[in-house]
């Protein structure tokens, strides 16, 4: 069970899907655009966070991108998925902000203190073990270079599709695939051999 889920269309029911909302927003229906923003603002903000490196710049970038997207809706192809299109604009804004600020530091990934509810509460020992594993994995991730870290974070931590990852990083889908597999190899090399998912996966408890 994912604690973080992003907006999904609810199928044949009443909620309109993205392209329908875009069509209405194009015609000046502000409520339709509001609905689109609400569906995608969480993922838009997180993409901006990963790229811009801090919350303040991420918020500025995401807002600027959402305004630009609104006035660019005429250029959106209704047969294409909306989210990759939006994320491309958001990511561009975030990159611009980072570049103009001359920042170099990357977003330091960390885990939240609170644990998602659901299922039986783990014992303190289990919690401690899992927490340690998470720390090891995040530390390894934070040691990767920007390109590797970003492709892994977009694909797995934001759970974007390859198409969406490609849009956010300004890459071709094929490049995302190859970069991702190389980044995973390097991440594995960063992990201690005994860690789950480390370079020696043998003997790992199921």
């Amino acid at each position: 069970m994912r604690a973080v889920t992003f907006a999904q269309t609810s199928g044949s029911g009443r909620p309109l899907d993205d392209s329908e909302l875009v069509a209405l927003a194009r015609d000046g229906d502000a409520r339709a655009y509001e609905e689109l923003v609400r569906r995608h603002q969480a993922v838009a903000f997180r993409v901006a966070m990963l790229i811009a490196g801090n919350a303040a710049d991420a918020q500025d970038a995401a807002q600027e991108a959402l305004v630009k997207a609104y006035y660019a809706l005429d250029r959106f192809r209704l047969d294409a998925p909306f989210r990759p299109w939006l994320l491309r604009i958001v990511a561009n804004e975030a990159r611009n902000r980072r570049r103009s600020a001359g920042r170099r530091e990357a977003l330091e990934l960390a885990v939240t203190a609170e644990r998602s509810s659901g299922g039986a509460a783990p014992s303190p020992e289990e919690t401690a073990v899992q927490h340690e594993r998470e720390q090891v994995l995040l530390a390894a991730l934070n040691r990767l270079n920007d390109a590797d870290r970003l492709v892994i974070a977009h694909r797995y931590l934001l759970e974007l599709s390859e198409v969406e990852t490609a849009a956010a990083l300004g890459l071709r889908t094929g490049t995302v695939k190859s970069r991702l597999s190389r980044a995973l190899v390097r991440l594995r090399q960063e992990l201690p051999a005994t860690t789950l998912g480390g370079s020696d996966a043998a003997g790992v408890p199921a």
Partner: protein
Amino acid sequence: MTGNGITELERELLDLAPRVDFAPTPDLYAAIAGRLGERQPARRRTAKPWWTARPLGAIAASVIAVLAVVLVVSPGAREAVASIFRGVPGIRVLIPEEKPEPTSSPATSPSGTTPSASAPSPSFTPAAAEPVIPGTSIALSGVAARVPFTPRVPAALGAPDRVYLEPRAARGTVTMVWQADAALPPAAGSVGAVLTQFAPTEGGDFGYWTKSAESGFHSSFRELEVNGGAGGWIEGGHRLDFRIPDSAGWTETATSRIAANTLIWVQDGITMRLETALPLEKALAIAATIR
């Protein structure tokens, strides 16, 4: 490196996803709402707000056999969607900005027969390329076991020349293809008829974009009843998108092509789509032999 190790690592990363500490998402819409009000998009029209959209099933029932919308989009026109027909589950017909043009199809009688329906749309030339059919080829005898419904064969067309199954869409989408012959003019390439069937779910969604801007085709859409079920008729070349959800649940367009005259309807809970170069009454006659 083993594929196993990668998979394990990927799973761990995905487990980590909900635990990563991103700053809480601010209310971005509230922050930009004022700026959206600064100016409206260039062209405003009296669009019906989406939250008041009426269930289209009811509309379908009330305008049976009446021409609902005739649309002709001039080349280069902005591709704004004026309305959306969803009377047939799993199919969306996006109807562009209306520009009524009573050219070659003047009067429309309430009975649903129009002069233009008696012949293939004159503006439509079948695509030279063979149509890309979603799925892979399968024997007709084997397909029923693979889908949650019984695929039907129109007696008027006889056994199909080829059958395709796309298992990812709507838990199984079946498409039957008949080659063109003397009685069946080509609709696309050497194909005379394409019949697609599926039990609609939220996954298997065809999209139709009836328009003419890029192709110079004129197309029209009307709602009508087919074999007692809700249906519609798209006459003339129009773009057909076939979408399937990817593993992440996001819908991606699998195929997109210009389609010929198309009858869509729902029959016994199965969504049917029959594409030919035939006029409406002949398409209806074929549909009537599906039992």
